[in-house]
């Protein structure tokens, strides 16, 4: 894997790993915010605390989670808000990710709504906060706490996962528990989760109100010399598509069939088609989509390409979703979030 940082750890998945439906745990991307990540735990004494505006605060052990609640399963894409940040132009500070800060996995755990139902959510509940066991070296640094609205927290899809692709979560990916928020960026997927708190008011924590902001107009776009005045927290995964194979430095031979493949993903709306253009967007050809693996899974696409001429090629990839939305050619924001502008593969045919 590509190591971006060691403290806290941030690791990126090599592109070729994305030629599988599910991303193996040992190659799954890693991203923490605070240097003191969990490195040691006795699972027998671990407790998940549910508190705040509830009738009955809970302290659930891993065994409680596995025996007192029906297990739930979902295949869902985890993707960092800043995935592909290094491709923004002009460049922006932050984790200099390529396309590898994402992964598709089968998550198994308990629906959050089942846990909240057991605690009994009080009338007037508004937000729910989530915190893990990571800590900052300085006491004054804001704790990493994310929140969801009570309605979102109680929907049928948000899950507290204790397994990833059939195994306990690796500690670097959030062992023992990780919040899974299908269709939303992974900033919400709090790892080493141990505290769920129901509030009767809006949560105003730093990591919800100051960090992870995007322009309020929903465009995920602004200009360096006219930044959006109003911002809101990032939420839904933006429609995007990428090339996985071939990579720019790979050898492609003229008049020989070459498989071109990649991924398309979104917030669960559904991918309608993925197209390629070999002439800077004048004309488009449709790729073949793999069957859907689930609403929140990525979608793999394939195209058999037989280039007839030698030389440089610039291939665009464009996804369209089931609401008819498609990708733009230009997009930028100050934080390098939610890349959705079309990717171009520059490759030489020999």
């Amino acid at each position, binding site marked *: 894997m590509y190591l971006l940082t*060691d403290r806290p750890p941030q*690791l990126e998945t090599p592109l070729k790993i994305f030629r599988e439906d599910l991303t193996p745990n040992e190659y799954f991307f890693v991203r923490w915010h605070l240097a003191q990540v969990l490195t040691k735990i006795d699972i027998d*004494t671990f407790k998940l605390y549910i508190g705040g505006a509830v009738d009955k605060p809970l302290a659930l052990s891993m065994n409680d989670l596995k025996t007192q609640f029906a297990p739930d399963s979902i295949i869902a894409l985890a993707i960092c808000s800043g995935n592909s940040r290094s491709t923004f132009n002009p460049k922006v500070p932050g984790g200099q990710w390529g396309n590898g800060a994402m992964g598709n996995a089968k998550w198994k755990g308990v629906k959050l709504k089942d846990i909240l139902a057991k605690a009994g959510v009080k009338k007037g509940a508004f937000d729910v906060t989530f915190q893990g066991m990571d800590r900052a070296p300085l006491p004054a640094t804001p704790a990493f706490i994310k929140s969801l609205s009570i309605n979102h927290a109680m929907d049928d899809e948000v899950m507290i996962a204790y397994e990833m692709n059939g195994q306990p979560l690796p500690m670097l990916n959030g062992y023992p528990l990780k919040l899974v928020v299908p269709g939303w960026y992974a900033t919400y997927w709090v790892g080493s989760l141990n505290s769920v708190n129901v509030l009767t008011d809006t949560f105003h924590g730093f990591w919800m109100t100051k960090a992870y902001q995007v322009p309020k107009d929903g465009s995920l776009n602004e200009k360096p010399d006219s930044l959006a005045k109003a911002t809101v927290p990032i939420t839904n995964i933006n429609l995007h598509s990428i090339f996985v194979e071939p990579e720019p430095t790979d050898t492609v031979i003229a008049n020989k069939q070459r498989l071109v493949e990649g991924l398309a993903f979104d917030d669960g709306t559904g991918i309608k088609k993925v197209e390629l253009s070999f002439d800077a967007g004048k004309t488009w050809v449709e790729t073949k989509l793999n069957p859907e693996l689930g609403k929140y899974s990525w979608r793999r696409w394939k195209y058999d390409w037989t280039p007839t001429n030698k030389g440089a090629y610039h291939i665009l990839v464009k996804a369209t979703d089931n609401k008819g939305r498609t990708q733009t050619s230009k997009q930028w924001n100050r934080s390098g979030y939610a890349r959705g502008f079309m990717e171009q593969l520059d490759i030489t045919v020999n």
Partner: protein
Amino acid sequence: MEKKQENSFSLNGSVREIKITPETPDFPDHEGKAEFMSYCSMCHSLKYISMQPNFPRKTWEAEVNKMVAKYKAPIDSVTGKKIADYLVAIKSNH
């Protein structure tokens, strides 16, 4: 290809532990290097800086200010300027 840096994972009954190897990149000598290396490693690895591309002075100054104002780094304004100057010296297009 390297597997994830869970490079030392032990399971002793119910206790699970991992060890993460720290890495400190090399940095060029310029005025302010000592302040940069000490203050900027209080809360995170210096790879956070070495992985960045070049930025203009305005961006580096904003980053240092963010560390103080948002993340509460204990850096006074004199030291903050020294650090920003160092970052400009090593990672900006002059």
